[in-house]
């Protein structure tokens, strides 16, 4: 949300007052001094969850500020110019021996007691609580921990912003636009902008650049996440919640490792997430691991075969906070990273020619996981206050929050040096409400090879991407050999927003380049500088056939379900922890639209079955990029017709943009693991207010109870309570 830089002083002053008023309420909410129910009671929120139309509060009182809804002042740039800083590669997380973890990971949560800090809410001096925040007991024990134990330890923390002294891009400086990784890396969006304070920005390990997790099939990762945020939840820079739950989006893991929104943990605790990294279908398909296409790259350049269906191979994930009702704030504060998965097919080595490896652009030096020509890009719009500190507004509950400064890998509109050859870019929309549509500034062709975590059945040549909804990932190959050394070409955003509900207009490339848009995030956001020829010939390929979809036609459809995403929802529960009020909700199978309650089960597919789900957007004034956790889906139709599904959506997906008034019908199998998962809009403001539901894989033959008790975390330990459930789940 932004005002034009030419707005009058009066208007800017009004906007500043509004910002202050709203920030006071945001802070009171996040500090726990008031609840959303209090705001309802005081008349500041309407029953629909909207902020009332009071001067200085409601973003939709347009006359008070501007035609742009909230009318925030623009983020000051302190004189910095676009494309004057290099784009940093992601910071690769260390992969340590499992034995390096102390204490050693355990199948069930480690409930060893520790003395609690009284600054934590609800804690009295002398109270103790468990060192691990994972819910205790067998239901939340790591599934397949004995048969597929973790082999790699990745310790991470979330903490306040600080200087990075251990930046590891895993590429030489020459492939990182000249950045000296040995130099301290400041927590700033640009060298000419102020450092983010430890309460303004919270990131993995507390540092920039954003973190990259490297994994390969069959090599389980124990991701130990330590919460090092302030014990006092008011120390949050005005927004953000210090409890965390980390979602590995879209891992095929047990629910205890999924980052369930209600399985959050407190400062001073850790949570052991176990990512076994398996191919879906491992219990029923290729169970003896004989197919070389179902495999993992080994250190000798060969393949270690693994069980499961090779058609389910995944490539590009990300991980981010999923704290109930605070996902938007925490992700916006920086709590997000990416996860590259390597496989027999997607090796991360372009030279190995064994008939299985697809040889996508990557590099050759290592047996797998070369990043030389395989680049992660996290796009996100940000805003900051007069002091240059991150600024956020939770009051755009009806629409969403769009900011005015475009960042890539959490730096302000950078440049990136490239060689004259093919590169793979794994592009993540890491914004909280903004959509993107990407073109090159000269309209040159690009090749889309993946959508969400998955390589497409066949590559698609494009000159502009489709809309990239929040949390969607597009992997794109760009061939820079068409350019001469010294030339530049830029990535351009063609999508204009006026608020966070949906893009207001798709601009032509010429219009986006003209600078005439009222949206400051339209236009060039990443400049490629072609600096040299590659030292060795580019042997990478983009094969005509990549990963065909799993054939589900022989599997009977056990159930069809319909989920309607809309506004004006009601709440039928009143639990102080699990239920939430907001304007948004989800209606299940013809039922009324309901606000989120992570204690309520809305669907329970049986393990091993296949279902067809239809997701419906019941309004024309917004879009919803809907994320279904855990299982990959195949889109069968849009608005009821298979012919409406574009080529780039014909692979497997985990985020489904519904489009205004639109619907998506998809099919999924439910298998291998069980527990409680979620389905929600990934416009995280919609998700937080309260467009989220819980579903669970209900398997009478599993060790799980039916239905599963709901975890209620406290610093002293996780309690459980009986869930509610919709009829006929």
């Amino acid at each position: 949300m932004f005002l034009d830089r030419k707005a009058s002083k009066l208007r800017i002053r009004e906007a500043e007052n509004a910002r202050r008023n709203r920030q006071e309420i945001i802070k009171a909410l996040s500090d726990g001094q008031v609840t959303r129910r209090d705001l309802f009671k005081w008349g500041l929120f309407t029953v629909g969850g909207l902020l009332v139309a009071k001067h200085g509060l409601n973003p939709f009182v347009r006359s008070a500020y501007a035609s742009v809804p909230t009318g925030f002042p623009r983020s000051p740039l302190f004189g910095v110019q676009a494309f004057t800083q290099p784009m940093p590669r992601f910071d690769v997380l260390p992969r340590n021996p499992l034995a390096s973890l102390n204490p050693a990971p355990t199948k069930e949560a480690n409930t060893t007691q520790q003395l609690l800090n009284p600054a934590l809410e609800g804690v009295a001096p002398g109270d103790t609580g468990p060192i691990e925040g994972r819910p205790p007991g067998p239901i939340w024990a790591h599934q397949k921990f004995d048969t597929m134990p973790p082999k790699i330890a990745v310790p991470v923390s979330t903490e306040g912003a600080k200087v990075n002294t251990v930046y590891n891009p895993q590429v030489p400086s020459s492939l990182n636009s000249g950045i000296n990784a040995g130099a301290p890396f400041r927590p700033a969006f640009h060298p000419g902008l102020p450092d983010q304070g430890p309460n303004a920005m919270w990131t993995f390990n507390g540092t920039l650049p954003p973190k990259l997790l490297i994994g390969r099939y069959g090599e389980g990762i124990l991701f130990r996440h330590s919460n090092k945020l302030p014990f006092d939840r008011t120390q949050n820079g005005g927004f953000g919640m210090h409890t965390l739950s980390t979602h590995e989006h879209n891992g095929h893991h047990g629910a205890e490792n999924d980052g369930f929104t209600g399985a959050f943990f407190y400062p001073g605790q850790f949570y052991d997430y176990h990512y076994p990294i398996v191919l879906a279908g491992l219990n029923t398909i290729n169970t003896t691991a004989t197919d070389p296409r179902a495999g993992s790259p080994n250190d000798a350049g060969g393949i270690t075969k693994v069980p499961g269906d090779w058609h389910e191979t995944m490539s590009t994930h990300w991980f981010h906070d999923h704290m109930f009702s605070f996902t938007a704030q925490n992700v916006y504060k920086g709590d997000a990273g990416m996860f590259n998965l390597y496989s027999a097919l997607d090796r991360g080595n372009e030279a190995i020619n064994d008939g299985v490896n697809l040889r996508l652009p990557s590099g050759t030096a290592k047996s797998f996981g070369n990043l030389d020509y395989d680049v992660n890009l996290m796009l996100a719009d940000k805003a900051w206050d007069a002091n240059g500190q991150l600024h956020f507004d939770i009051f755009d509950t009806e629409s969403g929050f769009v900011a005015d400064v475009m960042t890539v890998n959490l730096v302000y509109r950078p440049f990136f040096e490239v060689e004259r050859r093919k590169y793979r870019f794994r592009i993540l929309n890491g914004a909280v409400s903004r959509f993107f549509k990407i073109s090159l500034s000269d309209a040159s062709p690009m090749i889309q090879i993946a959508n969400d975590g998955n390589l497409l059945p066949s590559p698609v040549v494009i000159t502009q991407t489709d809309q990239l909804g929040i949390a969607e990932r597009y992997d794109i190959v760009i061939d820079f050999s068409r350019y001469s050394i010294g030339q530049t070409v830029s990535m351009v955003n063609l999508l204009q927003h006026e608020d966070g509900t949906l893009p207001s207009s798709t601009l032509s490339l010429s219009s986006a380049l003209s600078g005439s848009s009222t949206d400051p995030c339209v236009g060039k956001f990443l400049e490629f500088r072609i600096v040299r020829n590659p030292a060795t010939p580019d042997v990478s390929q983009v094969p005509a056939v990549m990963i065909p979809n799993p054939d589900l036609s022989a599997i009977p459809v056990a159930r069809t379900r319909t989920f309607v995403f809309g506004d004006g929802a009601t709440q039928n529960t009143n639990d102080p922890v699990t239920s939430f009020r907001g304007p948004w909700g989800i209606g299940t199978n013809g039922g009324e639209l309901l606000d989120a309650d992570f204690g309520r089960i809305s669907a329970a597919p049986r393990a091993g079955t296949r279902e067809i789900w239809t997701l419906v957007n019941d309004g024309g004034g917004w879009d919803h990029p809907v994320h279904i956790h855990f299982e990959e889906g195949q889109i069968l139709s849009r608005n009821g017709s298979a012919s409406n599904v574009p080529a780039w959506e014909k692979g497997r997906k985990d985020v489904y943009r519904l489009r205004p008034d639109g619907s998506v019908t998809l099919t999924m199998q439910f298998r291998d693991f069980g527990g409680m998962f979620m389905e929600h809009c990934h416009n995280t403001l919609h998700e937080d207010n309260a467009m989220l539901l819980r579903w669970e894989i209900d398997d009478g033959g599993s060790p799980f109870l039916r239905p599963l008790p709901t975890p209620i975390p406290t610093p002293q330990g996780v309690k459980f309570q009986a869930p509610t459930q919709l009829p006929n789940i």
Partner: protein
Amino acid sequence: MNIRQSVTSVMVSLVVVVLSALVWWAGPPAARAANVPITALIPVSGIVSVQPESVAFSGQAKVSSELVLDTSRLNHPPAVILTIDLSNVSGTGSLSGAKYVAGGNGTSVFRHLVSADTVEITFPFFRSTTAGSSAAQSGVASFALSFDLNTGAITSGTATIAAPNFPN
């Protein structure tokens, strides 16, 4: 503007409208959230002057228009989602005589609904024997479209194709 072509395209559009509506109403209720998409066939022609040869394109673009109405408190203005299909547009190389095909089918754009709009998209094209390869080149298609403000339907339109020429 070729009047006969335009009249023909609008008549074709009306047929497609009826067919689209029938298909839409036959769908399951849960999948019938959207407004009726209305498809028009827009005559397209133009030359893309690139190396190693110029390519003369002609054919008909299939442009689907879907009305988007916001009945919420936000009261966004009416809009249309346009989905553009150039699969019936082909080109001929000026030197080789080779056939070229256009890609990028299914490109969608979101626009405020106005009575007359110019919509410009870029698209990849390649020799038909190398479709899908990295040997693609790009063109620009500019559509001058008129809309029925009640239905979002395209009432008339023309399109030209040219080479990209953007300031870098």
